[in-house]
């Protein structure tokens, strides 16, 4: 009897880098075309976001924010991927992906209001193409698929990008979204920030697949694995995926290997599942330090610039958190009135109990 040629795709995929940890361009072909001003802007946003994250963690501990998911370490994936988009492109985030929303146009105080459980946090300004952060892991992947179909039907050369983590790639919605995007050839980018852990569950226990990029194969779309601590690799991958999408070539899955320096949330103790040694190794790949080295060599950035941006970020965060704190509290009648376009009679009656 002939042996059935069972095969599992066991080869890992290489994570593509553009910038070495000491700030040298090691992959010229993938280096995105960026002006000096753009380079400085990217650095500005990354430093700003790190400072804001530091402050947000403190604000959370002081009880001035509600649920907050730290982002430090993921600045390259978050800021790089958003930077590669156009303003009309649509961002469908997971709960951690607040920086993408803010750099795409959501005012920071609204992000704080969202964290504080205030509805105005989700009242995205007109012209800002983002959804509110998604709590259900993977639901946003399908929203992006629908939004992308909207672009396609409107014959609008725009793209929807959606984010999840390595844990999110195990959800049924992830497979359904990839498969739909493949079958309908939709302009959508599935961006997985693989930071090695789904809360405490390590990647090795998440999937037997060697990479998340492999999962694109079954959906018939391209998948790529990149160095998520390298902002140039991120920008290049997203730019090219967006270009494919705009030309009608369909969806792309991007797996960005990254690391979150802080725990999953403020109520989580990462030392229970991550070693100091591991954290140290990733610290050496810090995306901000790496970009700083590159920019310093080009004479575009100095330590003073970093300090200046930090001060600016602190001042902005202080002002925006105050604005959030001063925003009028929600009311139950207001809540009831936002359930439907026209409040039905039974809800009008229930409203009266609170007036």
């Amino acid at each position: 009897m002939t042996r059935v040629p069972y095969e599992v795709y066991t080869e890992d995929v290489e994570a593509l880098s553009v910038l070495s940890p000491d700030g040298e361009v090691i992959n010229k072909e993938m280096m995105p075309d960026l002006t000096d001003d753009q380079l400085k802007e990217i650095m500005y946003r990354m430093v700003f976001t790190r400072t804001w994250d530091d402050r947000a963690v403190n604000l959370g501990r002081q009880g001035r924010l509600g649920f907050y998911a730290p982002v430090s370490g993921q600045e390259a994936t978050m800021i790089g991927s958003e930077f590669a988009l156009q303003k009309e492109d649509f961002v469908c985030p997971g709960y951690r992906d607040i920086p993408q929303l803010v750099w795409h146009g959501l005012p920071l105080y609204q992000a704080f209001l969202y964290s504080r459980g205030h509805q105005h946090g989700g009242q995205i300004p007109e012209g800002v193409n983002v959804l509110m952060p998604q709590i259900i892991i993977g639901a946003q992947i399908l929203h992006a698929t629908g939004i992308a179909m909207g672009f396609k039907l409107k014959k609008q050369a725009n793209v929807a990008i959606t984010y999840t983590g390595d844990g999110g790639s195990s959800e049924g919605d992830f497979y359904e979204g990839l498969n739909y995007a493949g079958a309908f050839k939709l302009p959508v980018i599935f961006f997985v920030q693989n930071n090695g852990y789904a809360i405490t569950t390590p990647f090795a226990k998440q999937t037997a697949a060697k990479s998340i990029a492999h999962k694109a194969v079954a959906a018939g779309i391209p998948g790529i694995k990149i160095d998520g601590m390298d902002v140039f690799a991120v920008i290049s991958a997203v730019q090219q995926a967006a270009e494919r999408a705009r030309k009608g070539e369909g969806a792309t899955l991007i797996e960005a290997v990254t690391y979150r320096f802080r725990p999953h949330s403020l109520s989580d103790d990462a030392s229970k599942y991550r070693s100091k040694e591991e954290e140290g190794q990733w610290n050496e790949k810090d995306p901000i330090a790496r970009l700083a080295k590159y920019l310093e060599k080009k004479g575009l950035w100095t330590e003073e610039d970093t300090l200046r941006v930090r001060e600016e970020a602190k001042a902005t965060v202080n002002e925006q958190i105050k604005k959030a704190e001063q925003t009028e509290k929600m009311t139950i009648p207001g809540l009831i009135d936002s359930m439907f376009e026209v409040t039905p009679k039974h809800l009008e009656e229930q409203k009266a109990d609170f007036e």
Partner: protein
Amino acid sequence: MAQMNMKEAIRDAMRVELTRDPNVLIFGEDVGNVGGVFRVTEGLQKEFGEERIFDTPLAESAIGGLAFGLGVQGFRPIAEIQFVGFIFEALDQIVIQAARLRWRSGGRYNAPVVFRTPFGGGVKAAELHTDSLEGLIAQSPGIKVVIPSNPYDAKGLLIASIRDNDPVFFMEHLNLYHAFRAEVPEGEYTVELGKANVVREGTDVSIITYGLMVHTATKAADQLEKDGIKAEIIDLRTVSPIDIDTIVASIKKTNRAIVVQEAQKSSGVAAEVIAQINEKALLHLEAPVLRVAGPDTIFPFAQIEDSWIPTPARVIAAVKKVMEF
């Protein structure tokens, strides 16, 4: 005026809206070329093209998510879930995502989506094709649940649902698709969502019901009339929200009521109707309000479903019980 069965009336509603509004889309499993497993969308793809009426890969959650995303983009999707039992796969997208979108976004976004699904027993369908899950959806804030009982209502209610800027869950009883023909106006008209219909006037007892059970109640009322009992029948048409005003007005007249539903007895629409009657009409009652419903079991296999589903005899027995209380 044309004579249509309920299936044709539903199709006609979609045709009217597809013609009127280029943002209306229909999608789901097998809805395109063949027009769905019950042929409800038959011919529409040919008429309106594959961009507006299309088959999806087999994945209910993705159908829900697609509807949500297209709604955000300004389209008015009609998403078909092939059979009611499959909605569990899409429940997050229906009741967590679409139903909460307006509230979550403080009105910035809305989901003008209609989820259509066939349901209901008595046709010897496979398991999980028939269950009455309206109570489950009705319990979810932010979504309306509509169940027509006749072709005229089906068309008017569906047009109103498509035009509604909030999500609507539209349930079509399998046993009504071909049950009978009735006069259905051509072109556009709407039947207001959230408004019940007094389908038969009476003075002795109110029978509050919806969907196929309107016809079961009518058969019971015919028999009761021979026995000298005049039953008033209220067709809810929308089970969320419930039109309690029409119910209260009827009870003020009859002082007695029963609620008839095909679904399991506990915690469903009937229980909600009775709770609201207690709040608003208790002192007008001469007897407790009884429920006629399926027992609290899984919907049975085809062999005994006719015994499980409420019959005119069970409705008559309940009416006699409240009359003799």
